[in-house]
């Protein structure tokens, strides 16, 4: 809702031509609310169907457990029993609890490590691409290639690279079993994931860098600021809103990582099993109750991360604060001209 109401006051800035009959300050005309609700109703209906319903259905499902047994002739006697929160309680005890905590740890580890590396690498890529040099547009296009490759395909590519007689071992002169259980498999996933998604951050950050006006840098140069100073005082602060959005998207994406470890290392390998893979495995074994419980926990985890990011770090996902940098820039421009005048 915030998305749609935000532009409203902007349109009604006093003095804007073309709205003569309206009194400034009054937010809604008669029937406007109803109109808005009607116009929104298809969206709400679609959202309810594709988001709310599956969510409620998953939560509902997670409260049940298939209690199947075999009768004397070997046929399955079916029955779904309401078990309350037992599926959730099982996440912390016994064998299923061990698998859950392992998957939870892996998911968190992959998210933190890959997003951190991607951000650093993406920033470097953006800085490189932002400078004027020959073949810049070619570099920009080619850097997008990993991002354009479907994840499953890149998983296969890296599987070839990482197999025991693959190019990774040949180049390193090592005999690391990348696709077997162990730390090496974690590393393989991180490398492939960073290769694939650093360009995403790079390009988003590049877009953010390109709206920084050139005169800011010119002024900095006049003031005698070096490259590092420019990076720390101009580029990074001004690119921060874009960077935060990019990092948020990547984190949400990384939290539901599934296809890369699945294809690259293989299902059932505990070293790289993520929450999504665990939920898939459970549903594959027709244990829909616990699969839903895993999915709901993953959903809550993702939701918490998103909320924390938006609230604490002030990530501007909706673009509601887009105006602020412009104002700041104008202010800065103003102070600069004042300064210039004062020095004259």
């Amino acid at each position, binding site marked *: 809702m915030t998305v749609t109401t935000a532009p409203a006051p902007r349109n009604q800035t006093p003095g804007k031509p073309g709205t003569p009959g309206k009194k400034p300050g009054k937010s*809604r005309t008669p029937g406007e*609310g109803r109109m808005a609700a009607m116009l929104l109703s298809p969206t709400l209906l679609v959202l309810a169907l594709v988001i709310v319903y599956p969510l409620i259905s998953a939560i509902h499902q997670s409260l049940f457990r298939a209690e199947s*047994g075999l009768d004397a*002739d070997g*046929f399955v006697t079916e029955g*779904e029993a309401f078990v309350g929160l037992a599926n959730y309680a099982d996440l912390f005890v016994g064998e299923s609890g061990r698998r859950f905590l392992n998957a939870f740890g892996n998911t968190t580890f992959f998210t933190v490590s890959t997003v951190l590396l991607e951000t650093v690498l993406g920033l470097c890529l953006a800085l490189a691409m932002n400078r004027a040099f020959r073949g810049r547009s070619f570099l920009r296009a080619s850097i997008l290639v990993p991002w354009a490759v479907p994840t499953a395909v890149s998983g296969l590519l890296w599987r070839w690279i990482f197999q025991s007689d693959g190019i990774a071992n040949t180049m390193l002169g090592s005999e690391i*079993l990348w696709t077997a259980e162990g730390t090496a498999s974690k590393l393989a996933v991180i490398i492939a994931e960073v290769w694939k998604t650093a360009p995403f951050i790079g390009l988003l950050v590049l877009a953010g860098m390109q709206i920084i006006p050139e005169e800011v840098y010119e002024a900095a140069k006049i003031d005698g600021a070096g490259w590092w100073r420019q990076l720390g005082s101009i580029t990074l602060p001004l690119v921060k809103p874009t960077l935060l959005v990019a990092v948020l998207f990547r984190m949400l994406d990384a939290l539901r990582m599934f296809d890369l470890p699945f294809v690259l290392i293989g299902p059932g*390998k505990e070293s790289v099993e993520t929450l999504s893979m665990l939920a898939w495995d459970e549903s594959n074994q027709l244990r829909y109750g616990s699969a839903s419980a895993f999915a709901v926990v993953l959903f809550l985890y993702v939701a918490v991360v998103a909320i924390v990011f938006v609230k604490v770090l002030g990530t501007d996902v909706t673009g509601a604060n887009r105006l602020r940098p412009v104002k700041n820039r104008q202010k800065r421009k103003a102070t600069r001209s004042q300064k210039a005048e004062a020095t004259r």
Partner: protein
Amino acid sequence: MRQRSRTWQTLLTTTALVTAAAVSLTACGGTAQEPKASANAAAAFEGKGPINYVSNRDASGAANKSIEEWNAAHPDEKVTFIELPDSADQQRQQLIQNAQIKSDTFSVLNLDVVWTSEFAANKWIMPLPEDAVPADQMIPATVNAATYRDTLFGAPYYTDGALFYFRSDLLRAAGIAAPPKTWDEMKAACAKILALPETAGMSCYTGQFDKNEALTVNFSEAVASAGGSVVDAEGKPTVNTAEAKKGLNLLVDGFKDGMFPSDAITYLEEQGRRAFQDGKVVFLRNWPFLYASLSATDGSSKVAGKFGITSIPGTDGPGVSTLGGRNLAVSPFTANKATALEFIKFFTSEEQAQKRLSLSSRAPAYASLYEDPAVVAKRPFFPTLLESLNNAQPRPKVVQYGATTKAIQEEAYAAITGEKDTDTALAAMQAKLEEISAK
């Protein structure tokens, strides 16, 4: 004004919620329906008309030929081929989903042999009448794999068994007359062969040991070859035995003694093929489909003309292969069951199996086709494969196959990587399998 618009919003939200609730209710209603039709085989096959055949892809086009022939003869009972994704997991999921909503779309199902018990026990496929397949002409193991608790649930379509590939040139160079029949003979042969100067850097043997269905296959074969079994006829686990221990130790010691290449724990069929084809191993356990690429004379294979095949080794004699392949079964939810049964009989008949052989390399279920000179000329591995199949056993026939194979993979993998010793791994496997079979 505000008041009214809020009412509107409430109304809209409520509508949305009610719709959602209604949808969820209908969905629930579907799952909570009453017991399924009783499994009365004879009476149940009624109704004629068009049906759908749901299957994995057949790139050779042989299956389509059979269907075309049927359609030409039965214009009112046409069969439509519905192709499922290549991944077996996805095929199984789609088939199960269709069965769970009792959809009548899928009539004749093409099932992997390991799914037979699960589908039969859940009544997702119908028991077939005795005369549905000419069981006496088929390889016994294939009929066994289509049977659940002494009732036939599927008609064997094609089958698969393990072959033991060996380097005939190296055997000759080391002066060994016949390929090894047991693991001990293989070890002795390797000792001689690997002493030759031209075999520097080679390993003795490999199978497939990555944590995958292939590991279940290799583990089951090792246990069965040592005289043990993973589960008994009732599906009760029996891996905590001396025989099973002996079987698993074959693999564990293979890694410990350096008889297998150390990276074999990442091997699937393809990696094993490359290792053998590039001359890294002397012996290889694999499926028959390798035969063509290994004998390729275009330079891609270093071992063309230098290898032979036989049955996999055991502890005291030839080993026991597991069984691959597919069965056809009838869904109880389809309207035209009589047509479905007739189509299965037609499709899995010896005549059609023979016709398909000209296009497809899939091994038929009929023993007589393996001895046909015209067929053997084209597929020289058929006599050996028949030998392997005659001695084959299905993988564990259990209802919860997915959980079972996962437990086997986990513990067997822990044992061969040295994370657990054989006794601990097998005890843990037994406990897990008992828990699964109790469900």
